[in-house]
């Protein structure tokens, strides 16, 4: 039995479909991220689970218990809000104690659990401060402690790092990951930041236009996206139209090349496909590429852009009228040397490292 089962849940606001028929299972102890652009339905889904809004159809089942019609305070969840929603009139300790007191625990137990929760987020020393006397990062740690203090089976987090600056985000990202590992809680996490999703998640649930696009572990989602949206939302990719040839090779007319690509043989001959090439998988020095019949496509193009990013150089080439983005590791200053626009360069696309997507109507 999954920890949380979302079963054909649907929600409209007036004329706008906020969430189309959506189903998702989350296993106990899993960290699942709802990732997507704004308006994709991820916050709607989270609010439905929390009970802040009721679905038009479908069921949400937690630990085998149907949550339909249960008000938020009866659902026994933990929730971390965007920009914290700490009670401004209560001290840090009383904020953390709030859920424990709502459960009518005896004072001694409340104290012990507050101390433990504050210890987990390393804020024991600030127990008697007011929220407004804390920094943003500290406030967010209080919000975390408040949500885990009463050991909820499922913790919902709604863009918890959205209001923080970059360095703090890094730090708290680590903190949330550590909390999840230490406590073994099930976490459902909403974000639009792909890096957060990649770092934290056991599985990412990618959402787009009020529905789930793909649910997979981060690595699968990155290397084997199932749609153009998934391929473009997560990381950078070159998407080139192609066709499966009779011999199971992928023919790319724009490059006048044929490539051996994993998964091509399972497709029907003549099927139109999209070839996904991650920029960092392209070999800068063609000589280094593994060889074999149709293993690589050697492409020569004119440099359009050349941007030094530190660890990498991002280079956009014009190959026979199509753009190809290549990411090159910079091992020395020589690798990073500026290439003027118009210079020609030859690169090798490795068929093994490519991925096929169904071609779709534009």
């Amino acid at each position, binding site marked *: 039995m999954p920890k949380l089962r979302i079963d054909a849940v649907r929600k409209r606001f007036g004329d706008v479909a906020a969430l189309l028929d959506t189903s998702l299972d989350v296993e106990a102890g899993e960290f699942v991220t709802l990732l997507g652009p704004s308006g994709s339905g991820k916050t709607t889904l989270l609010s439905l689970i929390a009970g802040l809004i009721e679905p038009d159809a479908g069921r949400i089942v937690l630990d085998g218990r149907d949550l339909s019609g249960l008000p938020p305070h009866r659902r026994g969840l933990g929730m971390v809000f965007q920009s914290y*929603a700490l009670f401004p*009139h209560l001290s840090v300790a009383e904020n953390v104690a709030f859920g424990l007191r709502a459960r009518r625990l*005896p004072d001694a137990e409340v104290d012990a659990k507050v101390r433990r929760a504050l210890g987990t987020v390393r804020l024991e020393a600030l127990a008697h401060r007011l929220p407004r006397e804390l920094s943003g990062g500290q406030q967010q740690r209080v919000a975390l402690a408040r949500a885990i203090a009463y050991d909820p089976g499922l913790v919902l987090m709604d863009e918890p790092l959205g209001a923080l600056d970059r360095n703090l985000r890094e730090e708290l990202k680590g903190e949330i990951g550590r909390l999840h590992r230490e406590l073994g809680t099930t976490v459902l996490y909403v974000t639009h930041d792909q890096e957060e999703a990649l770092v934290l998640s056991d599985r990412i649930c990618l959402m787009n236009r009020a529905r789930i696009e793909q649910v997979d572990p981060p690595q699968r989602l990155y290397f084997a996206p199932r749609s153009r949206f998934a391929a473009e939302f997560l990381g950078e990719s070159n998407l080139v139209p192609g066709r499966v040839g009779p011999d199971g090779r992928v023919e790319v007319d724009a490059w006048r090349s044929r490539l051996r690509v994993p998964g091509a043989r399972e497709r029907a001959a003549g099927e139109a496909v999209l070839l996904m090439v991650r920029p960092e998988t392209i070999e800068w020095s063609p000589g280094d590429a593994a060889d074999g019949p149709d293993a690589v496509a050697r492409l020569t193009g004119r440099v359009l852009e050349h941007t030094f990013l530190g660890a990498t150089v991002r280079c956009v080439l014009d190959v026979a009228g199509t753009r190809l983005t290549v990411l090159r590791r910079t091992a020395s200053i020589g690798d990073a040397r500026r290439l003027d626009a118009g210079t020609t360069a030859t690169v090798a696309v490795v068929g093994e490292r490519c991925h096929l997507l169904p071609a779709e109507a534009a």
Partner: protein
Amino acid sequence: MIELARLGGRARLGPWPLLAFLAVAFVVPVATVLSLAVWDPARGWNAAPVLRIATTPVYATVAARTLEIAAWTTALCVLGGFPIAALIHRLAGRPRLVVFLLVLLPFWTSFLVKTFAWMVLLGRNGTVNALIAALTGEPASASLLFNAGAVLVGMVHGLMPFAVLTILPVLESIDPRLAHASASLGARPSETFLRVTLPLAMPGIAAAGLIVFVTAVGFFIVPALLGGPRQTMVANLIIDMVQEMLNWPLAAAASAMMFAVVAAVFVGYVAMFGIGTLVGRGRAPSARRGRPRAGRRAFWIAWDRVADLLSGPTPVRRLAGPAGTAATLALVAFLVLPTLFLVPVSFSRSGIVDWPPELFSTKWYAALDTPLWRSAAWRSATVATATGLLSLALALPAATWFVRHAGRLRTPALVAMIAPMVVPRIIIAIGLFYLFAKLGIVGSWLGLVIGHTVIALPFVVTMLIAVVQAFDERIEQAAQVCGAGPAMRLRRVVLPLLAPGLLSAFIFAFVTSLDELTIALFVTGGLGSTLPKQMWDEALLRVSPTLAAASTVVFVFMSVAVVLAQRLRERHAPQPTR
């Protein structure tokens, strides 16, 4: 800051004209008249008036009664006002606007008009008795007027809108996600209300209590018209001492007593909640840092039992919400409806006020067309216009300075600017009367304008602070960078953006002056009346349909002005202040 600064910047005007005005027209008169309690200008120190007040039993009785009535009024206004504010807060869109206006109308309806309405309702031949007679079939002529109950009803009816409009902005400032957070942590709605909403709304509730209490302690209209001799309050006493006994030291001693009570309450309030909430800028309340009190858990466990019991059977749960809303709407009806009973009475054919009135005649409106009423109306209109203009001229530079440059002077400046709001009006009135008598401007038009401006300024400053705050100075800088010169910026950018706010502040001041009786009571002298003064004099003689006609005219006029001001603010102000 460019043009706005020129309109009222630090270098040229700042808060100084306003503060100088308040020093001369508010601090000096109040201090002078209070000093008479212990200082005889001819003979020096003099404790006699204070001693006489302290040792005369009847004064102690009146003082105790005043405090009692004020305390009850405050409690009832806050208890009734909170659910109304909560209802408006909960509503959205059109229903919200309607209920809000239904509170705004009684807020701006003249106290005199509201009080006359109760005279019609509660009079011997009034609506309530007529209703009882109709229901029982027996003629009823119970004496419902001239007792403590009538006074309390009149005061609560008059002041509850103040409580609503003070509590509402504080409720609006509470982050709605806090309730979500509380629910996600397992607190049922009633618990969320008690542990989150109520503590956060406390500054607003206390501010409402303060404003109602200060006004109620100094009230004289309701006790004079709806109460009997046994309901005389301190303000009525002070009026008698000044106007009948001509005993200034005694009046001063009574005023000092009232002032001391109000000052103590005010200081206590500021110590607990700060000054901000009084002008709609809430401050987060301080935390309860101490250990939770013993027995708290026991209380909540008991609470759960009751709540479970109540929310158990579905019908009860289903009915609880609508029943609460209905009760709150009944409270709103209590605020709005009484005044409307004046309208049919004003069209009565008979010369006495009774219910139901014999319709239909406009002769009482015709009766208003006398030189007396016409000159009163004209005087009120010109005084109100001048008050509005003077208030704006003083308040705009001060508000601009306050928003942009006040820095660490914010709190003291704010206390100084809103001080007239928390000093009972009767004390300001006799202070001005005393001072004007010395200067020989009692009965002058100017005296009225000065007095009314003192009363209107705190509200106007508060409104303009919000207006200036909503004005993004970068817009003006953008205009300058685009090459607009000072004249063009003023004409095309600053004025169009500020105009709605300025106009609605003007209307507020205008309406305040038009409704003002206390100052007018003392300052008009032999010259002739303002409209409220004329109505008051008439009411002391007898309650006539003429009065109902005058009230109806005033009521309709005020309603139009208020709706207009409200629409202006909602259409144009980026952040409407409430």
